[in-house]
């Protein structure tokens, strides 16, 4: 009897491991970045800049805006808001911008803590950063941070998907990205489409270490692979900007010793390997940055132009894909501009629409989300 059981268990080992080998061989091979779309039509030669505050008045505190372009040049933005950052009443809000009227719709709460808790079937204390983007099939994905225990170091990521431009959404599902109780993974940077239909989602960790990773997410919203972007205790919130199917640059917030500078890494094999982080010439007061490759070549970066505070927000251009920079415009921090009651302008999100205009959304004084749309003529005219 015992001998029979022993041989039976050996057969079970053979069967299970055959399955594990098949699964390992079925793992999708490395995919390439989806190259940036063809150049947008020439934008108006007349300088255009339109700043406005979103009508997000239902919450005292807001932060961390993100957006996707809809049909007809509209934008759908998301952000989190509540009585304060980390409060249990924080929810993810959404609103739509119409370029014809140049107005934002009234906001609506899309994901509350209770809603997420009910669908995820696990306790949640608070919600955090959302990140929106499209996959190759045109669906809109919304990733957002939630915390069950502790502070932001206890974060995990959840995902929802919409097939009707953000009107209705799937229930949220949990992404598993860390073996340590699945804590300490957050999102902030835009997702990148890959050639096989999967998504590359830049994330970062804040528990013990501070470092960036690139998650590979399949069409069902499951993590099927990951690559480390950095390691240690000083780099977070990666923002990845591909310029071809294989080449990309990424910028990261810096949380280490002075001098405080924006970090930069590069890949030449579609994200399979990344260079060591190097400090750029641009300052970073331990704050998020945003970047986009403009349709006709230069790289644009939105950043807090100081080492100590978030009281200024500037735009810098690079014509050599990140090696050198010149500050083109200041969105906040100049003496003539109206100041927010709380003098902080942070967490920029930036994108170029199909018409060639650039949109920046950012936290304005922790109380409002500000939207600035501008064209190349305005950007280049800043001296």
């Amino acid at each position, binding site marked *: 009897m015992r001998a029979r059981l022993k041989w039976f268990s050996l057969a079970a080992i053979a069967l299970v491991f055959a399955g594990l080998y098949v699964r390992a*061989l079925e793992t999708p091979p490395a995919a390439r970045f989806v190259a940036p779309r063809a150049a947008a039509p020439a934008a108006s030669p007349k300088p255009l800049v339109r700043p406005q505050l979103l009508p997000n008045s239902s919450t005292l505190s807001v932060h961390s805006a993100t957006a996707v372009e809809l049909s007809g040049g509209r934008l759908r933005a998301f952000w989190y808001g509540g009585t304060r950052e980390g409060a249990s009443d924080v929810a993810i809000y959404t609103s739509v911008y119409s370029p014809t009227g140049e107005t934002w719709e009234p906001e609506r709460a899309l994901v509350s803590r209770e809603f997420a808790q009910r669908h995820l079937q696990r306790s949640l204390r608070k919600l955090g950063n959302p990140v929106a983007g499209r996959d190759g099939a045109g669906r809109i994905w919304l990733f957002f941070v939630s915390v069950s225990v502790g502070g932001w170091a206890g974060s995990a990521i959840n995902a929802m998907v919409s097939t009707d431009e953000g009107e209705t959404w799937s229930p949220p599902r949990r992404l598993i990205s860390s073996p340590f109780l699945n804590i300490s993974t957050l999102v902030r940077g835009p997702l990148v489409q890959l050639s096989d239909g999967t998504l590359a989602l830049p994330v970062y960790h804040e528990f013990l270490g501070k470092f960036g990773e690139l998650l590979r997410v399949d069409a069902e919203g499951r993590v099927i692979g990951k690559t480390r972007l950095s390691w240690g205790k000083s780099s977070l919130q990666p923002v990845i900007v591909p310029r071809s199917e294989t080449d990309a640059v990424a910028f990261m917030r810096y949380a280490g010793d002075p001098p405080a500078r924006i970090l930069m890494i590069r890949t030449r094999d579609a994200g399979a390997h990344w260079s060591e982080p190097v400090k750029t010439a641009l300052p970073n007061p331990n704050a998020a940055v945003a970047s986009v490759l403009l349709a006709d070549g230069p790289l644009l970066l939105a950043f807090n132009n100081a080492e100590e505070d978030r009281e200024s927000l500037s735009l810098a251009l690079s014509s050599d894909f990140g090696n050198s920079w010149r500050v083109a415009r200041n969105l906040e921090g100049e003496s003539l501009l109206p100041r927010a009651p709380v003098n902080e302008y942070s967490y920029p999100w930036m994108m170029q629409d199909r018409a060639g205009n650039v949109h920046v959304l950012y936290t304005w004084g922790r109380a409002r989300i500000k939207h600035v749309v501008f064209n190349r003529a305005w950007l280049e005219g800043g001296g």
Partner: protein
Amino acid sequence: MLANTLFGLLGCGLLCVALAATALRFHVFPARVRTALMAAVLVAVLIPIGDLSIAGTVRGATGDLSATTLALAVSAVFARLSGRTMFERREMNALLWLVACAALFLYPFALGWTAFDPYALGYGSAAFVTALLLATLAAWRMGLKLVVLVVLAGGLAYLGGLYESRNLWDYLIDPLAAAYALAVLLWAGGGKLVSQRRQRAPVV
């Protein structure tokens, strides 16, 4: 409700039963009462209070439980129900040693200690599967049935996609099993050290 949500909640429910049975000393009651108490605890932790059950609250903190933790929980429940141990001490020790070694390999690197990330191997690495196969065959050869059982259960659950994770590591170990293994082994090692010192001490 998704199958992996249900499975995750049942796993956390089982952990709650094991903890309650151990902490509340169920073994002092007659067998039928013990069984009834455990069934009652399982039902109580799985029934939603508002939107969420107690198992859901536990799941918020622990995530889905690995095959190792579930095996340890089943073993604890069996011991409290029957008054007998389910696995030989030698088999349990072997599992705890393996879990402790795997945890020391996995967690420091996965938490960003270096550029190397062993957790990424769990998404489908033939090298990782081969290392696991060799360890499992060694355990089979040595008659360590519990280790073999845990690997097979974890492997089957992974192939069946029972958890939210697509990473094989999550099916095999988790921090609860790692903490338990390290605590038991350190406690046992400390106890041995103390008794050795006592034996060496001169008789006065």
